[in-house]
């Protein structure tokens, strides 16, 4: 099973993603430079965190015009799994694969801490290994992670069960005290309508080793691996 980890100039979690994925059984993850134009042969695509193009103009605004992004859109439309963490989430919103946008944190600070997120959808391609209401301890590290969407979009996200993760208190409540950055409805991660594109501000790639604080990120990658395995079994 092959994962592509896209490298933009300014990506800085590409190595974390590669190391996390290559530590998992049966997975081979490779870097794909953003100037490439093909993603043929990969089973899943990872847009890593970082500061692509220095976050100039807006986070992800320039990266979304990188040559590789046409293939990312094409593969996403064909149903391939795409995950964007942090800056990757911002790029997915900028290019329109995910609704809404990420703006400056409510308190203006860059936030670097471990947060609790609650799994809101237990049967998504990215979280089916986690029963509904499971709490995942994941690091965040961002200055522009405040998720915004207008009311109509929010209603649709809720109705279609596209809100996959919300920031929660340690005991699993969703309230303002658990919201690190001002995101509407404590949203930490959403998927597209088809359910194959997932963007989240937390870093599962930095939570893959219990000795380093948390291994909860593995649950997301493991869910992806199982989804891909199940779909290739169906195809066979």
């Amino acid at each position, binding site marked *: 099973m092959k994962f592509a980890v896209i490298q933009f100039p300014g990506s800085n979690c590409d190595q974390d993603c590669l190391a996390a994925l290559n530590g998992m059984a049966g997975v081979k993850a490779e870097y794909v430079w953003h100037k490439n134009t093909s993603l043929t042969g990969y089973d899943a695509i990872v847009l890593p965190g970082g500061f692509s193009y220095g976050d100039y103009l807006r986070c992800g605004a320039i990266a979304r015009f990188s040559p590789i992004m046409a293939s990312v859109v094409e593969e996403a439309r064909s149903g391939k799994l795409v995950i964007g963490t942090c800056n990757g989430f911002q790029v997915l919103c900028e290019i329109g694969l995910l609704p809404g946008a990420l703006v*400056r*944190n409510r308190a203006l600070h860059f936030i670097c801490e471990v947060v609790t997120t609650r799994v809101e959808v237990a049967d998504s391609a990215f979280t089916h290994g986690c029963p509904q209401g499971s709490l995942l301890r994941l690091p965040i590290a961002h200055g522009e992670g405040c998720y*915004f969407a207008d009311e109509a979009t929010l209603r649709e996200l809720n109705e279609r069960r596209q809100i996959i993760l919300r920031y929660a208190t340690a005991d699993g409540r969703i309230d303002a005290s658990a919201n690190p950055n001002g995101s509407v409805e404590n949203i930490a991660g959403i998927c597209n309508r088809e359910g194959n594109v997932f963007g989240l501000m937390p870093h599962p790639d930095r939570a893959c080793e219990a000795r380093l604080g948390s291994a909860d990120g593995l649950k997301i990658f493991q869910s992806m691996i199982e989804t891909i395995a199940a779909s290739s079994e169906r195809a066979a």
Partner: protein
Amino acid sequence: MKVKVVVTPKAAVLDPQGAAVRDAMQHLGMPEVQAVRIGKYLEIEVDEKTPNLEARLNDLCRDLLSNPVIEDYEVVK
């Protein structure tokens, strides 16, 4: 020719920078300041003889210079 583009956050979008500057202005002796919104201002040098300039510029304002989900833009000549 110099084209000026002003990009502003939409009213519904949280603008914590604007709020921080409003607070600072109030502290510095202007309690009458009610709200501040912070956007972006771009000056673009462009060859005015280019055909179809205005439409192409508007396309890029929409696609690159602003994000229509959170921002409005205005082209000022």
